[in-house]
């Protein structure tokens, strides 16, 4: 069961690593100081969660790779994050909408995983749940503020929802090779989370005077290593120092 568990941990860890790195691009560039600090903190939480998940992935794999080896020495095709995490940061509305969509997914995922029969996964999930709840509250309040704000903020928020919507379906695709893990109570079936996710999303979008598009084609591929062109560029920036100076300590 260790190979499927390793893959499941990569899916969990890579989502947070890639989204965390993407969010860190706002550091020094956010529209106001408070949001600069907020986005840097959110990025840090994501990378901290990724650190724990990839550390455990390396231990489960048993091949001597630690979290740094997994983060810095895998190519895009070996990454298992959902595509929504790697899309360019876009404007502030895109960043906020993405944190709302993915953060809400994370809350539901951590809630389910905090009951895992695997004590390490349960511990990481219980910890991450508190952080993700905080992120969703921050992002959700901004979705309402932007959507129900000025004509400009409404238009930008609606455009962000339309841009990201086709990438939300992939979050709830349950990989076939995880079925034994789910049956054993080690991981959670993400397809069971979609109903609760959609209910909260609809509620918040309604309050924000925004609408979700109907019947759009859902993109997929990230969980199988088929990524957009954007991930390679992100990894190039994230990995260059570690690859230029392998084994460097500071």
């Amino acid at each position, binding site marked *: 069961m260790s190979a499927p568990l390793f893959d499941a941990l990569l899916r969990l860890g890579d989502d947070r690593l890639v989204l965390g790195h993407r969010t860190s691009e706002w550091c020094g560039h956010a529209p106001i100081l*408070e*949001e600069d*600090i*907020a986005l*840097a*903190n*959110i990025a*840090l*939480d*994501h*990378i*901290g*969660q990724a*650190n*724990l998940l990839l550390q455990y992935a390396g231990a489960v794999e048993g091949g001597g790779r630690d979290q740094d080896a997994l983060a810095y020495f895998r190519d895009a095709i070996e990454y298992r994050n959902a595509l929504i995490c790697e899309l360019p940061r876009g404007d502030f509305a895109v960043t906020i909408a993405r944190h709302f969509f993915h953060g*809400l997914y994370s*809350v539901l995922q951590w809630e389910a995983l905090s009951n895992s029969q695997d*004590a*390490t996964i*349960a*511990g*990481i999930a*219980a*910890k*991450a*749940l*508190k*952080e993700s*709840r*905080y992120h*969703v*509250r*921050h992002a*959700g*309040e901004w*979705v*309402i503020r932007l959507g129900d704000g000025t004509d400009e903020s409404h238009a930008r928020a609606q455009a962000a929802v339309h841009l990201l919507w086709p990438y939300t379906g992939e979050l709830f695709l349950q990989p076939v090779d995880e079925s034994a893990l789910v049956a054993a109570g080690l991981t959670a079936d993400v397809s069971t989370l979609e109903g609760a996710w959609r209910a*909260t999303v609809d*509620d*918040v979008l309604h*309050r924000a005077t925004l609408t979700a598009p109907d019947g759009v084609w859902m993109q997929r591929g990230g969980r199988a290593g088929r990524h957009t062109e954007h991930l390679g560029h992100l990894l190039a920036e994230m990995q260059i120092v570690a690859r230029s100076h392998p084994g460097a300590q500071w």
Partner: protein
Amino acid sequence: MVAREQVLAWLDEVKDPEVPVLSVVELGVVRDASVGAGGDVTVTITPTYSGCPALRVIEESIRDALLERGVGQVTLHTVYSPAWTTDWIPAAAKAKLEAYGIAPPGPAATESELVPLRRAVASVRCPWCHSTRTVLRSEFGSTACKALWSCDDCGQPFEAFKAI
């Protein structure tokens, strides 16, 4: 051979690098300590936040503090469950936080609604003038564990420990 209580007393002198008025024991980062048959010490710690950058420094400080006092071997054991909560910070330590200028955390109540339209306003007392006419300026502050507030009475900005 050193007693467990002595080890915890020593660790109570190790300050958090970002909140130097609290020890790592008061903060709840140190969960336990045990002394092995050969006098080696194992300290069980838990991180405050997954990405808390102070954790590495805390680990080194714990190790150094025990090695300096003659402990031969120090092992750090990190646990994630139960998840760290500000409810572990004792009342006396909360008073120290306020005196230092950081509003201490209230009870870590979980809001039932994920995205509340109007949030129940928990009154945070200004650590400078003790007024409760205070406003949340930012959910996030200079460190992962704090939020940014300001006081309408004395006009001072201040940081408050997030209750989680």
